């Protein structure tokens, strides 16, 4: 940015290089910018996304929204030079007085347009964020047309090791079983009846279950025992996850995607 003319007290001519920021969303500032030459992009910043609002050129004014809001709010958008631009910056003290003195109906109309713009910008932000999420889901393979449900309970037969998470001294044994089905909320474990003689399997107890998925990903799950039933020669245990960290959630989610 290069200050060209310091002698003019009310208006200053500033030069911005291509890519330079003119003002930033959420900044305080009441100055109005008139594009003398060049091109400027006005955009909103929302959840790390840039949502373009308008591309403006010679003769257009930017930064006026905060003026109409009488500077009580922060800037609602950011602006950046799309090419080398000359911009006249005015501190609108006089303008503000003139605006205050103008017909109330015109001020009301400006406010109406302004409110509409703010409402539409918020709407646009939401649309842009939704669109971005969709794109990310698509990339992660979470997008599919036939099924609306993202994850399913899957029937499996996975050999696993499990142990009490906080085993009393002398009971810290690791036992074997097999996971018969698994979902994003819990799993069903089948264990030999004899396991019960080695370690307590009380409802409410927390276990660490370790297995390797068919895609060779290791899975360590912290589960609470919620159901136990005896079958022929084995015991069926229903468990829900006591906690699921981000990495495990992703691994599991990927595995549970419908084929």
């Amino acid at each position, binding site marked *: 940015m290069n200050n060209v003319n310091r002698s003019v007290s009310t208006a200053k001519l500033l030069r911005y290089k291509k890519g330079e920021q003119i003002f930033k969303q959420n900044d305080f500032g009441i100055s109005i910018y008139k594009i003398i030459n060049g091109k400027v992009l006005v955009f909103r910043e929302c959840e790390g996304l840039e949502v373009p609002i*308008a591309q403006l050129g010679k003769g257009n004014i930017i930064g006026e929204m905060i003026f109409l809001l009488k500077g009580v709010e922060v800037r609602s958008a950011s602006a950046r030079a799309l090419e080398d631009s000359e911009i006249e910056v005015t501190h609108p003290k006089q303008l503000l007085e003139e605006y205050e003195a103008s017909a109330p109906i015109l001020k009301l*109309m400006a406010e109406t347009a302004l409110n509409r*713009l703010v409402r539409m910008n918020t709407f646009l932000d939401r649309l842009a964020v939704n669109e971005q999420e969709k794109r990310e889901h698509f990339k992660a393979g979470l997008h599919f047309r036939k099924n609306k449900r993202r994850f399913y309970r899957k029937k499996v037969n996975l050999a696993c090791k499990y142990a009490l998470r906080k085993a009393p001294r002398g009971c810290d044994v690791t036992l074997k079983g097999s996971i018969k089905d698994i979902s994003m909320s819990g799993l069903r474990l089948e264990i030999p009846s004899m396991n019960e003689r080695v370690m307590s399997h009380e409802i409410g107890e927390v276990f660490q279950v370790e297995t390797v998925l068919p895609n060779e990903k290791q899975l360590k799950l912290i589960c609470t025992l919620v159901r136990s039933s005896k079958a022929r020669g084995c015991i069926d245990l229903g468990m829900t996850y006591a906690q699921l960290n981000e990495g495990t959630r992703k691994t599991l989610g990927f595995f549970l995607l419908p084929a």
Partner: protein
Amino acid sequence: MPIDPVVYNYICSEMRYPANAVIIEEGAKGDWVYVVLEGQVKVKKETPKGFVVIDTLSEGEIFGEVAFLEGEGAGRSATVMAAEGTVRIGILDKEQLIKEYSLMSPTLKAIMRSLPIKVRETTQRICAALVAGK
């Protein structure tokens, strides 16, 4: 929202519309400014994939100001339709509005005019995003 007394003073005519009647048609010439006196109106925009509703306005809200502020015979930026039931619309005195508007300095007018430009651009972007998401 109750009708602002400032607006009341400018109402020169009143119209009633049945549900789904078109009040303003997108692209048509005209710069009258309206206010919703009773009921609701829907602001719609035509896209290659049909109409999309971009806004709904209720009692006391002004519409038509985009074309008025932009001036110079700009076409209507969107279609406005009566929503359900009977909708009562007030029409504002255009002559009076133009007179007041002409008293503004060129800079202030330029600021006023920048709003509808942005409303139009933002409307286009919303439509594009809605159509892409359909």
